[in-house]
């Protein structure tokens, strides 16, 4: 008789139920720790305190009957009939589990599943079934068993138009609130209406070269960030956010300083190279929102389009103004060098903040 210690070890008793609903049927598996299997139906035939593969195999029928009694899957009003495949073993970090593949044949295509999980409830009320249910591309999780009783899961296909509108809006909003992206772009576009002659900026005489400059920079930026946005959003490539945010800040410095000390005349190259990293920045927003499963491509394309529309809107609003005032001293000697310097300083502050966290 002593005071109980307050430290608990060992994981709790978990079973794992994985179900995938397709048009025709519900397929999946049930996993139980070998230990829990022993408690449920008895596996250690020679009572030597160890369960071997041979002993587990021999209890295929007993395990099937046990599961049929205690895992009730229903769709609508009638329970689905469970059938099983031969047992396998799955190694998890806390030991070996028996893996029982199962199929639930339901009378109609299920739009909703009712699951009643009662395994081990008479001998270990702490046992739970951790459910992962995938239907119409969407995944739901739940904890079965305990006092929860029968739980219902319904699946609705997300409306693609709604998804399109939602992510389009998000894309536009993100570029309009993304000062760093806009500053980068505009650092590259400010000199689009000028040309460099004898160490000075001079107004470009005609509209066409200016337009060409704008198109080249915007297209390069758009292409680059679309590529990396897609790659990152689909989890093909991943970069740590601290790195990308810092490089985005650095890109603004490069673009802005290039206006004060012009080195690179083909600014579309800067737009492309750094545009690749800006794409990762956009992707982190999407990651926070989460792409809706079952409508991932729609969401991704819509977001990208939103970014482009938003970008285009700002360019179309500002560039004609820049063209109009390109001859003024205010623009050539004011906005260009001093505005760029200001932008570079601001970006330097961001760089320190982001790099040093």
């Amino acid at each position, binding site marked *: *008789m002593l005071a*109980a210690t307050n430290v*608990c070890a060992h994981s709790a008793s978990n079973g794992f139920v994985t179900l995938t609903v397709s048009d025709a049927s519900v397929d999946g598996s049930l996993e139980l720790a070998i230990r829990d299997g022993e408690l449920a139906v008895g596996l250690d035939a020679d009572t030597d305190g*160890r369960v071997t593969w041979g002993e587990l195999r021999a209890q295929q029928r007993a395990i099937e009957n046990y599961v049929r009694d205690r895992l009730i899957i229903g769709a609508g009003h009638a329970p689905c009939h469970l059938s099983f495949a031969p047992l396998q*073993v*799955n190694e998890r970090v*806390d030991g070996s589990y028996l893996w029982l593949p199962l199929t639930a044949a339901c009378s109609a295509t299920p739009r909703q599943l009712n699951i009643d999980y009662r395994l081990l409830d008479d001998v270990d009320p*702490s046992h739970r079934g951790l459910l992962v249910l995938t239907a119409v591309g969407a995944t739901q999780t739940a904890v079965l068993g305990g006092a929860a009783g029968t739980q219902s899961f319904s699946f609705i296909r997300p409306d693609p138009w709604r998804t399109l509108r939602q992510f389009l809006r998000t894309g536009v909003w993100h570029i309009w609130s993304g000062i760093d992206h806009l500053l980068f772009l505009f650092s590259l576009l400010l000199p689009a209406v000028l040309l460099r002659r004898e160490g000075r900026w001079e107004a470009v005489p005609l509209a066409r070269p200016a337009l060409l400059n704008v198109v080249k920079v915007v297209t390069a930026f758009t292409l680059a960030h679309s590529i990396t946005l897609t790659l990152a959003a689909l989890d093909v490539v991943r970069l740590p956010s601290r790195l990308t945010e810092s490089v985005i800040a650095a890109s603004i410095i490069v673009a802005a300083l290039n206006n004060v000390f012009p080195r690179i005349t083909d600014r579309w190259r800067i737009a492309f190279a750094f545009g690749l990293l800006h794409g990762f920045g956009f992707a982190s927003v999407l990651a926070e929102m989460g792409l809706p499963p079952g409508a991932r491509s729609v969401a991704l394309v819509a977001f990208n389009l939103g970014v482009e529309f938003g970008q285009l809107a700002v360019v179309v609003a500002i560039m004609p103004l820049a063209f109009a005032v390109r001859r003024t001293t205010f623009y050539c000697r004011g906005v260009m060098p001093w505005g760029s310097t200001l932008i570079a300083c601001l970006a330097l502050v961001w760089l320190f903040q982001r790099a040093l966290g």
Partner: protein
Amino acid sequence: MQASAALPRALTRGRILPAVVGVWWVATTGLTHASPYTPSADAQILAQIPAGARHAQLPARRLARDRIDVALPLARIYINESRTTGDLRMLGYADAVLAPWVGPNSDSADALILHAAVLQSRHDFSAALRELDRGLRLRPDDPQAWLIRATVLRVLGRYEEASLACRKLSGRVSVAVDTLCEQGLRGLTGELTSAYAALTDLPTHTMPAAERAWRDSELGEMAVRMGRDEAAERWFKDGLASAPEDFYIRAAYADLLLRQRRANDALVLLMGKENLEPLLLRIAIAQKQLHDPGLAASRARLNAVFAAEHQRGEGLHRREEARFLLDVEGEARAALIAATDNWQVQHETDDVLVFVQAANATGSPQAAAAALVFVRENGLEDARLRNQGERL
């Protein structure tokens, strides 16, 4: 698991390509789902079954539903098993055999008090106190009930009430247990030095092994909080000598070694104990200090344990999770969230420590203000906290 060992070797031999491939492999296998297999030999052993977890005992469990004189001893066996081995499933089994006897009309103080012990081990402290109240109404002087009550209240940081519960023990338990209960609380409320002296003076030659281990554990913890690490180490060593299965002492001793950066000694102490999650945590911290390649496997296991707990919606190991996030994963913000959640449930000295450490690590020490107020109000002394203060 093999890739993580191969990776450092590949890098040290200067072969970058296999290293890159290795990283990619580890990254992708981390993302893939479970992959079941069919074992090749019937004789392959899949699992050990502890005594007490056999299907053959089903008739006894069934009998326990109708016979309280079968249920109570069986529950005691399960609870003791869970205490010595840390096996959580045993608590579930105890729950099952006690369930018919602890309903709303229960008239068995024994069943209610045993049930309270189960609830306490599961950190369901308010339910444990309610159950103890019910048991004490039936048998007001039950020493086991008062002892469990004192322990629960101590964990909750309700020291005055715990002290009252300890006082109910006098005359009904051995002098050692009485002293341990009382002095343990005094040591938390500003009388650390004199409480330490009082426990050191306890005569040990008549003490049963379990009480001696409790005394060693309490003295070790007090010595740590007094900043006397050498004395603490002696107490922990003595404690493990009388009770080698006591994972609480082993964990506290490992913490001391890790604080002194004696990670190799910690690994020796914890060898073979990877199956107990609080000890696995200390193994992982030691492996991190030593840049040991086994760290990847430990991290994977601990991540899986905490993930399953989150999925179950239970927070049994929140304190361990906070330490894991802080000391192994380096995720200070997530550690602070876990430590804050943990503080809502329990107020032991280790809960204070991890809370303060996590808050400091995120650069906002005021986030742990609640813990610091608690320390000040109770006069809780802890040398480990003083070091935290200096870091500020």
